[in-house]
């Protein structure tokens, strides 16, 4: 059962990258920081990305809660060369996306939320 689920998620990640040209890489990570599916470039260390995603999302969640912003929807990091955006997939997983500096953020957000919804369904069904 493990394999088809990973495969389904991977296909959804690839579809995401195909529709949103600004997105360079993406991954699905468990909330405790383990990789579940990834479409990351070879030079990126999966284990580090997944652990960092989980840590960042959990902190974002605490900050949003403590400062009265409600349930966390997204964590957004902007660097000179682009963005890293994290959003939760249900209670159990995180969608991590890396986007180019010139990416159209509105589109990226929209495509990400659609992908997150689909990925949540995949996680629930399988």
């Amino acid at each position, binding site marked *: 059962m493990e394999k088809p689920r990973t495969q389904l998620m991977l296909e959804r990640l690839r579809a995401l990258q195909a529709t949103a040209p600004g997105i360079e890489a993406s991954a699905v990570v468990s*909330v405790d920081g*383990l990789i579940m599916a990834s479409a990351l470039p070879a030079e990126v260390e999966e284990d580090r990305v*997944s*652990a960092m995603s989980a840590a*960042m999302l959990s902190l974002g969640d605490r900050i949003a809660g403590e400062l009265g912003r409600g349930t966390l929807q997204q964590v957004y990091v902007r660097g000179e060369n682009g963005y890293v955006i994290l959003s939760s997939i249900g209670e159990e997983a995180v969608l991590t996306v890396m986007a180019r500096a010139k990416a159209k953020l509105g589109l990226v957000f929209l495509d990400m939320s659609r992908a997150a919804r689909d990925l949540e369904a995949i996680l629930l069904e399988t």
Partner: protein
Amino acid sequence: MQTVKIVVTGPFNAGKTAFIGAISEIEVVSTERRITDHSQSTKEQTTVAMDFGRITVDDGLVLYLFGTPGQRRFDFMWEILSEGMLGFIVLVDSVAPETFHEARGILDLFKNYSPACYVVAANKQDLKDAWPPQDLRIALKIDSDVKVVPCVATDKESVKRVLLELLYSILETAEE
């Protein structure tokens, strides 16, 4: 008012989150998440970023306690959290000798980050099979000038003793 940053570290399931939870006077900022890989552990939750707690020692001294994640894939947090610390505590699960090697590795890494004072806390001394502190000292090859303090992380008085021992060590080093 002086504030002192202390880091609580140690291997997975050593009791770091419980340690801070037992003593903190504020609600602990914790980042525990459900464990998804149950082949590794029977524990329900694990820290993925940090714990933060605070304890006022007296009018002039407040301790900020930062707990680290225990799993090595979060080691980037170890370095971040160690910045500016005045001392650190290595918690060791005294009933899990298979984690002693990892505890020693974490200890060496933290010594490498900063020349800060440290003590080793031999946690879970309330359990039947707990290794006594003096045996832990030998197993982990702890220097003779470093304290190995018995500890029960769920007991406030016990946690207080570990923190005081660390503070004494910090003061002694400062006087030298």
